[in-house]
């Protein structure tokens, strides 16, 4: 694949169809600028600011834009809030739809058939593979991203996080917890 992709880049550059510096800029954006720390800031604010949480529930795209995040693969955002009774999990069974502006590029497992196939069929078993065991009576809701709506899970605020500031809270919010494959970290 190395040679194949290099050939494509060389040919398309010679044709004037792509600019390698633009390729660099795209890669740099998702490698260094846009990633799950964005989403963690959104979640931390939702935990600390009830008015923001209400706006996030009402119109997630706008609420997330207040924090400066938006754009490609986040044009139509919906935030889903975990509760003690209901755990949410996000998947795209048909491809790899994922909310890039708040979570960055999806991890390899999210895009692979095993997760896509099983998340909608046996999510408890999938969660166990991530080390997450839910109480047996906790409901599970799986959101299959089959259109252009992108889902962000707002995990429950962990016990013991009272008194932490927004930045400290954001450090507890893992990428996986915002997909629903994890829960927020308990403060040390």
């Amino acid at each position, binding site marked *: 694949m190395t040679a194949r992709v290099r050939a494509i880049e*060389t*040919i398309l550059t010679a044709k004037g169809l792509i600019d390698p510096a633009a390729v660099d800029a795209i890669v740099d954006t998702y490698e260094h600028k846009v990633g799950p720390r964005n989403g963690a800031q959104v979640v931390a604010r939702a935990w600390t600011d009830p008015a923001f949480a209400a706006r996030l529930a009402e119109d997630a795209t706008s609420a997330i834009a207040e924090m400066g995040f938006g754009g490609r693969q986040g044009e139509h955002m919906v935030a889903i809030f975990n509760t003690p009774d209901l755990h949410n999990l996000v998947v795209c069974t048909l491809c790899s739809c994922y909310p890039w502006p708040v979570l960055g590029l999806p991890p390899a497992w999210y895009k692979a058939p095993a997760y896509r196939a099983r998340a909608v069929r046996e999510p408890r078993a999938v969660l166990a593979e991530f080390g997450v065991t839910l109480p047996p009576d906790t409901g599970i809701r799986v959101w299959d991203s089959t259109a252009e709506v992108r889902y962000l899970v707002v995990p429950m605020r962990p016990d013991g996080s009272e008194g932490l500031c927004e930045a400290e809270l954001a450090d507890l919010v893992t990428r996986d917890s915002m997909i629903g494959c994890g829960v927020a970290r308990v403060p040390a």
Partner: protein
Amino acid sequence: MNGPQDVGGRAGFGPVAPERDEPLFHAEWERRALGITLCCGVLGHWNIDSSRHARESLPPAVYYGSTYYEIWIRALEALLRDAGELSYEELSSGQSLAPGKAATRCLKPDRVAAVLSAGSPVDRPASAPARFSPGDRVRTRNHQPLGHTRLPAYARQKTGVVEAIRGHHIYADAHAHGAGEAPEWLYTVRFDAGELYGEGADPTLSISIDAWEPYLDPA
């Protein structure tokens, strides 16, 4: 299409394999594959739906035998060939043999941030009200076109409840095939696992899809 991409609910793919401290890219060529694909998307020869269709149109053995960015590259080659921008001769020789047709639309680095932050919203004005309301019971149609669709097989001919109206969005089934944007109302429809999978399904589990109006009948 009943293609290799439609894996929801199917068995045999093994365990999920989360990686500890996983890298964003697993090889340098994956970085280039991402960037090249996004740059080529700006050329205007195809849209997100037709690019998804190119990926799902790979032969199943190729699709399942390829990593994610390999799927992207194989589909990109097909899209560029169909657009007349990349020939087999060029790929085998590694040389450009003709100027690019859409070179005037080449994405320049100073526009990358603006293009990524603008995104491509797909909501469009509606000329008719939504047929369904939250709470309505609906049944998905036996909708299995030979072309692109976003109704997964596991949710075909199933009865669920409309949970939300998401807007009036470009209809992927049409948009993937040069039929324009043809926007339709989009709904989140929730199903109980028992409806989807029958006896023995997890009674605590429900699953939703986002479904355009043409996928749905009243139940």
